[in-house]
């Protein structure tokens, strides 16, 4: 499919400032001061997301994808003036016209669970073992709504029913350990949805689940998003999961976005060598069996001591093609063409990237 016939578009063209997107993140930096040095977990991240749309953030451990989600919700304790004891945040996070980086902890707290909510990876450890599932859902409702306990409980039962828990009026009093893994994740989703949040962040929501249960949960999330018309950010390392849900995809490496664009063009015409590596590393059920996988050599970088220039350069097979720039200059996240839909952070000339992908990479995926 050619670029011109793209049907997906980014919610708002990056750089456009006239109408702010529902969620508009600009140059977000999340750094942590440690004894070994400054950890730049997220370093200059920008993206936009509208209601009803889904952004998939893909990356390996240490790419900064989970830190991004935590900082959107303001869940990191802030560092003191000396830069110790927490996260050093800069940049802007605009949620429905409200800026969150400069918001007070109390303002953030009022938004959490109400306007933005989160689904965590492992529902067994993410739910309190000593409180019943219903109590935990009702609690989330009562923080933000002045209702009686009975009303909150009713709401919890309603939500459990909606997420597909059988016999919700009796299961509401069960404890998390009495639920199966899939039901716990359903309950976790019910807890996140109890206040009708407009922004929902799911951090590896199906990684701890079996594949048949994962399919159920992905199905549920898709239905619920349509029903609630929320903006959804899904964070995962599983390219299959993002392909199922996401409209836009952002690939992160070393705290930065290296490729960002509509899901379709990122999957069918990826331009960053790291994205090629991710796709090549993964055996696919929908393709003939390859003789060999095409792994990325080496290991993910240390966030304290990122390689100079492009953070991916020590693992990149194509760095010879761009001279010394790869090891000295940090590349910008730039449009691959004039349309500004598909952004890539790479020194290789656009033409080289395209021919390399079509001639060398695509046949092996």
């Amino acid at each position, binding site marked *: 499919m050619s670029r011109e016939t793209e049907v997906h578009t980014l919610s708002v063209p990056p750089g456009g400032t006239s109408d702010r997107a529902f969620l508009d993140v600009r140059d977000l930096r999340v750094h942590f001061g440690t004894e070994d040095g400054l950890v730049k977990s997220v370093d200059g991240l920008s993206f936009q997301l509208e209601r009803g749309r889904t952004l998939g953030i893909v990356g390996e451990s240490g790419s900064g994808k989970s830190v991004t989600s935590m900082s959107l919700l303001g*869940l990191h304790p802030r560092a003191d003036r000396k830069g110790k004891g927490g996260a050093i945040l800069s940049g802007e996070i605009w949620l429905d016209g409200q800026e969150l980086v400069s918001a007070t902890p109390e303002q953030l707290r009022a938004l959490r669970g109400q306007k933005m909510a989160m689904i965590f990876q492992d529902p067994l450890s993410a739910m*309190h*073992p000593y409180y019943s599932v219903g109590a935990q859902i009702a609690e989330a409702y009562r923080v933000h709504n002045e209702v009686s306990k009975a009303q909150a409980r009713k709401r919890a039962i309603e939500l459990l029913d909606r997420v597909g828990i059988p016999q919700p009026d009796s299961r509401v009093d069960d404890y998390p350990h009495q639920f199966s893994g899939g039901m716990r994740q359903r309950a976790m989703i019910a807890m996140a949805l109890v206040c009708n949040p407009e922004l929902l962040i799911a951090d590896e929501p199906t990684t701890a689940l079996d594949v048949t249960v994962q399919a159920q949960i992905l199905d549920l999330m898709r239905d619920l998003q349509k029903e609630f018309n929320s903006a959804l950010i899904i964070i995962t390392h599983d390219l299959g999961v993002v392909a199922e849900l996401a409209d836009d995809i952002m690939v992160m490496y070393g705290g930065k976005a290296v490729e960002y664009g509509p899901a379709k063009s990122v999957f069918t015409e990826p331009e960053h060598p790291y994205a090629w590596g991710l796709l090549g590393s993964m055996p696919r059920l929908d393709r003939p069996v390859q003789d060999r996988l095409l792994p990325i050599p080496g290991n993910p970088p240390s966030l304290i001591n990122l390689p100079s220039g492009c953070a991916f350069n020590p693992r990149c097979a194509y760095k010879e093609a761009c001279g010394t720039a790869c090891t000295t200059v940090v590349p910008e996240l730039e449009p691959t063409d004039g349309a500004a839909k598909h952004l890539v952070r790479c020194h290789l000339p656009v033409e080289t990237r395209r021919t390399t992908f079509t001639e060398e990479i695509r046949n092996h995926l």
Partner: protein
Amino acid sequence: MLTFIARRLVAAIGLLIVVSFITFVIFFVVPQWAGQTPEQMARAYVGRGTTPAELQIVETRLGFNQAFLPHYFDYLKAMFVGTTYFDGTTYLHCSAPCFGYSFRTYQEVWPTVLSVFPVTLSIALGAGVLWLIFGVASGVVSAVFKGSVWDRASMFISLLGVSLPVYFIAPLAMLVLCYNWSLLPSPTYVGFTTNPASWAENMILPWTCLAFGYAALYTRLTRAGMLDAMSEDFTRTARAKGLPEHRVIGKHALRAAVTPIVTIFGMDFGALLGGAVLAEQAFSMHGVGALAINSIASQDFPMIMGVTLFAALFVILANLVVDVAYAALDPRVRLA
């Protein structure tokens, strides 16, 4: 839940019988294995100065010439129906529950232990409340403000508390507070029913001195437990729901952190009820602990046996209460 309690109760009773058997073996059987004749043992139990003929009767009464098992069952039977002892001159009745008769003080063991128990109970109760409140509170504050001045100060004080034993702090506190500054009376036990105000005033020092060491320990336990709980995923979930920080800490994290503390508290408290030996000694209060020390000093075997069983009873009871409390606190235990 009821079957759970019933099951634990059965186990507790079984354990008590085992303990009674072991004490019996230690006090009645081991000396025989060690080569003591029934006569020597009878003399040891009733004191010196009895004639051989009288000793013969003592032997029979105490059952030293009986076979092992019948002897044990007689001993058990006495607990339920009472028995009569003979010290060589007089027949002494010991009514049920009979845990033996002291031939040193001419007292039945059980009433003696019960008569001194209020002292121990008073000490343990007040100290327990104090250390639980202060230990958990300072542990929580330390954990929440980890690395702060308060945290470091409380860690230093708790290090002192753990390393300074009550028999060191008690005389020091008495010296300063009672003798130098005359702020408090030199502690003597006044019955609670006699004069509650005076009871409390006299108890302040034993309570605080005993609680100091425990509170120090509990501060550290709570701090560690809270730090663990605060880094748990469910605490992060609580924050993500938008709960105010005091609810996140006070409800979600604390609930997880105190559950093991409750267990330890039950065990410590139960052990103290069996005799706060050091504290009683340090403040010259005559509770169960002091009774144990005195009985050992005067080789009053029946009394030692009685106090041992009494202490064991409380440890086992505490275990039972802890198990039930744990099941009430942690829903995962109930079904197990």
